[in-house]
């Protein structure tokens, strides 16, 4: 059986079990609404465009935040890979920063940027930057020395060697870094939105919760999960696979 078919059957069974449980009142509707209520809540949300606005607002923040974090992350990663002093000092700080969830910066970010876009985007940037930094650093440091030797015998040195050989050689790590940065940024975004003003998926989630609209809560959770899975599998994993194959790293 194909994996896709197996997956389809699995999810159908899951929803069936959920629907039957709700139908026979194994749990109360206010605790876990039935799939039909969730479906209705999602349809209503998309019909009056609130969920569309939420998606647009969330993606806007994500794209800005992710773009900035990839830029800063790459620049910082290059710096750490090239300068021993930077690696010994800033590098250790980056490791520490990477080990904490970026949402803990939100209180500070609200003081600095107010309770709006700025604070959330700041948290998203922090979410993606350090994982990108560490991957870029590792990628550059792990370039096969043979490529560098070969390039030097072909007259390539300095900046030419760096941009034409070292950076392209570390692209597999850059792609992995970008994929992880996206995943961290997406989590940071949802956490940030839950705690601040709307519109946005996270904001609607909390709003629905405050008004006891559990069907919409679950609906939004499903959207967040689906978006996360789709972007990861359809975009990043596909690029990663192609790159690994071309770079001859696929086992």
């Amino acid at each position, binding site marked *: 059986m194909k994996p896709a078919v197996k997956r389809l059957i699995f999810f159908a069974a899951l929803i069936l079990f959920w629907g039957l449980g709700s139908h026979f009142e194994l749990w109360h509707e206010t605790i876990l609404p039935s799939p039909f209520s969730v479906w209705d809540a999602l349809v209503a949300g998309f019909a009056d465009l609130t969920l569309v606005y939420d998606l647009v607002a969330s993606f806007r923040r994500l794209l800005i935040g992710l773009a900035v974090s990839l830029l800063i992350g790459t620049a910082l990663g290059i710096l750490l890979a090239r300068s021993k002093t930077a690696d010994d000092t800033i590098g250790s700080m980056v490791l520490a920063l990477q080990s904490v969830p970026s949402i803990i910066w939100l209180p500070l970010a609200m003081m600095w940027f107010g309770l709006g876009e700025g604070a959330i985007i700041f948290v998203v940037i922090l979410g993606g930057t350090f994982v990108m930094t560490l991957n870029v650093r590792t990628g550059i440091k792990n370039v096969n020395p043979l490529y560098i030797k*070969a*390039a030097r015998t072909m007259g390539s040195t300095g900046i030419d060697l760096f941009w034409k050989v070292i950076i392209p050689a570390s692209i597999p790590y850059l792609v992995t870094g970008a994929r992880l940065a996206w995943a961290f940024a997406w989590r940071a975004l949802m956490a940030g939105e839950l705690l601040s003003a709307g519109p946005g998926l996270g904001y609607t989630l909390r709003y629905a919760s405050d008004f006891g609209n559990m069907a919409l809560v679950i609906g939004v959770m499903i959207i967040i999960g689906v978006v996360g899975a789709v972007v990861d599998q359809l975009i990043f994993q596909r690029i990663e696979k192609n790159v690994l194959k071309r770079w001859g790293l696929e086992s």
Partner: protein
Amino acid sequence: MFIEIQHINKIYTDKDNNANTVLEDINLEIPKGQFVSILGPSGCGKSTLLSMIAGLTSASSGGIVVDGKNVQKPGKDRGMVFQEAALFPWMTVTENVVFPLRKEMNKKQAIERARHFLQMVQLSNYAGHYPHELSGGMQQRVSIARSLAMDPAVLLMDEPFGALDEQTRSRLHGQLEKIWIDTQKTIVFVTHSIQESIKLSDRIVVMGTRPGTVIADIEVDIPRPRDEHKQQVAALEERIMGLLKGEIDKVINEELAYEARS
């Protein structure tokens, strides 16, 4: 002389601060157009010596002159072919061959030149392929084409066929011999295979180990193609085997002594 290797010593200190002599007082003169093999057991420093001619490794003392210029750093006058093809996986075959040319000629000329050398190694049909789509032998041919395209004064080859299967290696020997005859390049070829060195070279420099020294310098005057002179080849093979036997015993004894100590 075209290549002059004068009083080369290479000593490196390991983490316990013990000095290891890798190469001791190596002196060689190689005339233009010669195909020289440097033959020796592993650990004799033959690859280190080649790397010094390429300018990738520095000597502890002594000097190397290629075509009147002191070797200080790597340069396009010395093309290097490594044991692994060292092609850049993000570039097509043509782009790889163009890589060393891109600064000194325009794109059209560079591609034209790449095509010429890919034809020489019989890979014209694979110009647009990526390295991962090629077999090990084909990749190594691209790597040879890439070095030749720079028009180096000397081609340095570090066990270039060591990682290939027997049939492929034998075919590439034939191709390399033909390329050498056609281009008249000076080739310094590092190998640990006695047969390979006899099949290909004008001259075999036999190196001993610990420390690396030249123990014999043999002119090979067997007419080419050498497959047709099996008796002479076998006689020379035996002679070199005799020279190296002592060296190989030395390595084994040293290792046994080391194990006994530890």
